[in-house]
């Protein structure tokens, strides 16, 4: 498997060079966010700050704090609900198959790939109609509904690894649909819940199109607010970079601490599973 030994150093040089390329935006982001505004010039872009200035963080935080809070109000219930619905759907579609179940699953799955532009106009009309337009509750609802395909897929793949014989023997012991779910599927799928929760947390936190079209001003999640930071007349790049870091921090932390599950979800989300 390993290349011959004389190419080893070359291998590491390549990997390190590519790593530097991948880390370059992070480097620039961090050093720029720590510079005072007069040092944020194009010519000094790569240089370390002469003094650490945290004022851009203070400014970015004041501007983004309400939106960060909105994002948490959005992402926590939406993640929880979509994981719950996905697990029930996945359970039915993997362990209680019926005629046409596979076809139905494919029909549900298509919803994962559609450009959301193609449902956006009726969606906004609908949310206006039921009074959820421009509200976090409306966004929660939207993410739960459009999360159904992906969470169903991920749980269905996950439950496929639980042997059918286990379900059969539980049935013989008299357990029903709910009993099996509660006492066999849920305890065995804690990892599944973690994977789906991380996936949904990341996607909903990072989502932009629904957020920018369904909410305005003080209801906006953080990604829209971050985008609006750059819309102002004078672009304060240090504040922008600090804001970008703040907005990215929750998903970065999730990735740093639970990266293994994140990648699992990524692979599960690629249909092949």
């Amino acid at each position, binding site marked *: 498997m390993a290349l011959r030994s004389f190419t080893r150093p070359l291998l590491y040089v390549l990997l390190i060079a590519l790593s530097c390329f991948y880390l370059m935006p992070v480097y620039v982001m961090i050093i720029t966010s720590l510079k005072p505004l007069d040092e944020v010039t194009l010519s000094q872009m790569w240089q370390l700050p002469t003094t650490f200035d945290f004022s851009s963080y203070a400014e970015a935080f004041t501007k983004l704090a309400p939106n960060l809070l909105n994002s948490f109000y959005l992402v926590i219930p939406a993640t929880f609900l979509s994981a719950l619905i996905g697990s029930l759907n996945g359970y039915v579609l993997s362990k209680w198959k019926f005629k046409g179940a596979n076809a139905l699953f494919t029909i549900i799955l298509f919803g994962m790939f559609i450009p959301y532009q193609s449902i956006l106009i009726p969606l906004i009309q609908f949310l206006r109609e039921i009074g959820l337009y421009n509200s976090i509750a409306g966004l929660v609802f939207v993410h739960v509904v459009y999360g159904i395909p992906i969470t169903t897929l991920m749980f269905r793949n996950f439950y496929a690894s639980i042997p059918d014989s286990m379900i059969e023997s539980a049935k013989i012991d008299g357990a029903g649909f709910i009993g099996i779910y509660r006492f066999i599927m849920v305890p065995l799928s804690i990892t599944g819940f973690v994977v789906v929760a991380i996936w949904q947390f990341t996607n909903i936190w990072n989502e*932009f199109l629904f957020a920018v079209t369904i909410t305005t001003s003080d209801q906006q999640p953080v990604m829209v607010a971050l985008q609006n930071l750059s819309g102002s007349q004078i672009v304060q790049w240090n504040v922008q970079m600090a804001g970008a870091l703040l907005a990215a921090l929750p998903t970065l932390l999730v990735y740093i601490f639970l990266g293994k599950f994140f990648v699992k979800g990524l692979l599960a989300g690629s249909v092949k599973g």
Partner: protein
Amino acid sequence: MKSETTVEQSVRTATTRKRRSLTKDHWLAIGFLVPSILLVGVFVYGFIGWTGYVSLSNWNSLVPDFSFVGLKNYIYLFGDFRFQADLRNTLFFTILFILAVIVVGQFLAILLDQKIQQESLFRNIFFFPMALSFVVTGVVWQWLLNPSTGVNLFLEKIGLDSKWYTDTTIFPAIGWGKIEFGIPIAMIAVVIAAVWQMTGFSVAMYLAGLRGVPEEVREAARMDGANEFQVYWKIIMPILRPITVSVIIIMAHISLKIFDLIYAMTGPGANFVTDVPGVYMYETTFRGNYYANGAAIAIVMLLAVAIFIVPYLWSSRKGEA
């Protein structure tokens, strides 16, 4: 003894299934699925239908007007300079983006597969951009690729033109309809940012695939005198072809509907050199209140995605039935 009872049991369930077709629990299970089916039915398929209807209507102002105008909005769009530019941009963006994600992804996955030290550290470095949002990526790369800064300072030093981020040149610029057909140079900046963000996905896919190839396969190839390069190129990559198909499909659907990265990074650009249907749809519908035109753009986007996705879903369904 035990196996006898299970056989008996399965025979019994098979016969009861025949007689009553579904048990009470089975109906309960289906009952739990019903809300999701209804939601997907209405919010995906019903809403697509409604968007389709809006795209055939006259609703091009703040006041909804559902009078039927046939294909008028579509005819307008396909004759529109901006939309023609969008289609060209999407085509070249998609091709460059997918090619780069596959080539870089395979390359990195093969490097990581060499039993290197600190593998997980390197893996994490290549994967982490995926945890970021396109808006964050857009904001950062906008700063990095600004004309006469950052990467471009370096390009200038080695004598290359550094103004490509705002370059409106189309290469090779063959006149076609109202637009020049070719690669918009400014689009390359967006491709770089998108590739930076998404290669982790293909690295993960290829790495999982490489780890799934049994060592005996490699050994057998080596015994036949193949060198490492040939082992990968002739033996392993063909085995991983289904992964390449998956990566192409996933990346194609991302690139065909891309909106936030471009919206955050460049916007439509001068002469619409970095505009895409996602951005046009948003601006037309929610800034200009041309709802019917916006709906028509959305339907074109949906059809473009469906061309890739429907056959893919169809074939993967057949595989498991």
